[in-house]
């Protein structure tokens, strides 16, 4: 039996592409596999990522923003930074792209069963969290978790991702969504304040609750102590690490922190694991 070559990108096409933020730095791509059987074979869970490749430019890892419950929809949100991301920002709808994945361990959905869910997101790291939240808001899975509390912050209102969904979530009662910005502007009516302070204010009980936190290093640095202060035990705080990756399958050695490979053993880790890893960030 011929072993599958994990490095060969599966051909796909860009169905829809639109700019998310006012500073044009974030763009969401909706992809569709060219071949139907690739689409069938593609099963993923929230928190996993894929390596998107543009021939001639290279490859880069992106968290899957869509949820498995959205019937085969596959969306990624790209922050424009380097050669590959710029190329991803420039390609038009209908052009080709290569996908490798699903990669990484994704969120431990089993462990979330029967617990409350506290989701804290910051900036453009909200992609995998959106997948997680959408998964649990789906009627079939809503019952698996009890209380869902979401705190999502961004620097400015224009930089918030998935604005329509945020509004629709706001209207639902089975989810408590708090959206905050560091600096408001004249027509921003919502909360203004840093995520750690908002968390302190909200002070959700840590009893039987799992916290999932993703965001820029500075936000995590100031939010973790707040969570610990609210008696969240280390093993019930999960985060998804952002690291330089190349192969995505734990071979090329690029993404290791200590003995763990972020791409294979992560990117989702609980704080207990991270604690005893060498401080190599």
């Amino acid at each position, binding site marked *: 039996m011929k072993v599958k070559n994990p490095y060969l990108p599966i051909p796909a096409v860009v169905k829809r592409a639109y700019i998310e933020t006012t500073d044009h730095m974030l763009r969401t791509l909706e992809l569709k596999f060219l071949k139907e059987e690739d689409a069938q074979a593609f099963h993923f869970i929230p928190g996993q990522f894929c390596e998107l490749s543009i021939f001639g430019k290279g490859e880069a890892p992106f968290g899957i923003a869509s949820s498995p419950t959205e019937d085969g929809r596959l969306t990624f949100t790209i922050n424009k*930074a380097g050669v590959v991301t710029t190329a991803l920002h420039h390609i038009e709808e209908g052009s080709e792209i290569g996908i490798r994945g699903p990669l990484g361990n994704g969120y431990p959905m089993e462990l979330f069963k029967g617990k409350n869910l506290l989701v804290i997101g910051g900036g453009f790291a909200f992609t995998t969290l959106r997948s997680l939240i959408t998964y649990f808001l789906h009627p079939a899975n809503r019952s698996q978790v009890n209380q869902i509390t979401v705190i999502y912050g961004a620097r400015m209102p224009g930089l918030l991702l998935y604005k329509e969904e945020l509004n629709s979530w706001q209207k639902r009662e089975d989810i408590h969504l708090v959206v905050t910005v560091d600096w408001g502007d004249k027509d921003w009516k919502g909360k203004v304040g840093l995520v750690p302070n908002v968390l302190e204010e909200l002070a959700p009980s840590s009893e039987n609750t799992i916290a999932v936190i993703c965001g820029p290093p500075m936000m995590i640095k100031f939010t973790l102590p707040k969570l610990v202060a609210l008696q969240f035990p280390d093993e019930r705080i999960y985060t998804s690490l952002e690291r330089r990756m190349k192969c995505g399958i734990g071979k090329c050695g690029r993404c290791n922190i200590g*003995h763990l490979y972020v791409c*294979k053993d992560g990117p989702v880790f609980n704080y207990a694991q991270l604690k005893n890893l060498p401080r190599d960030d």
Partner: protein
Amino acid sequence: MKWKLEKKDFQKFLQGLMEDYDLFAPVKLTEGVSEFKKINQPEEVYLNQLFTQKPAKEVFFPQSEVMFHYEKRGGQTQTISLEEIERERILLGAKPCEIKAISIIEKVFMSGESIDVYFLEKRRKTIIMGLACNHPLSTCFCTSTGGSPFLREGSDLFLIDLGESFLMEGITGKGLSFQENKFLKEPSEEDLNTAQLIESKAFQKVDSSVPVEGIEKRLDLMMESTFWNRVHEKCVGCRICTYLCPTCHCFDMVDEGGPQRGQRVRNWDSCLSPLYSLETSGHNPRPTGRERTRQRIMHKFNYYPKIYGQVACVGCGRCILYCPVHFDIRKAILWTSPKRPKKYEERSSS
């Protein structure tokens, strides 16, 4: 099973093999430099240099390897992967330490659900004819890392140079087909004794005093020690020690060519290069030489053992011999152990 092969028919023996195998063996590039290459004529085989600069891992994990071609035909890009190998191959002249290192790399490339098919294909279709180390150097410390100059593990066939002839031992079943070859004779008793004598003499020569034992535990608590500030100072950050190390297996993937057609290539990479962990945002988790040198030692002696239970160093001594600033990993290992010399408080320990 053991055979004797006269050196005078060695060339003809190899000629025979080459009919149905591709032969890879060290070839002399220039005075004092040799490299594993595909052999066209048996005369090219050059076994006098104790070990080649680039280790035998190159035969399984080449420094630069095209993974697949891509071509845009009619708006649709086809990818043609290049992992297939038609002809079986023979690796001749690899030393025991290099062969053991291949098994170390094997653990990484062939574990988990995603298998590195390029390495797998080459590994499966290669018969390893190891060559014993009759005269190890003073920089060799393979015995300290659980190896030995006559380690047979990992070789399919094992050659011992008796001077006029080779003693060939069959270790695994592989490569049976050519064992009934006409050049192979029955080894005499006296041959076996000389082989045994050479083996014990070689074993003594190797420095087994390097305290590799228990280094994984010791390094656990040394992550933040000032030891690293002193270790890295003399290292200028070139990539010799990682490219020449038989166990190093990091690589980078890059596209060559334009949007219309080109190829994706995998090249060796080194954790000592500043660009290795530089993120596009400009943040670099290992900004200075201190973190990078620490990463090289920690990965070999702490991280890898944690995952695969054995140290990722085979004690071949290449990184000691070829380092332009004479960084000696044995000193670094010594320095982490309780036996470190007290009076060298001041000395840098690398």
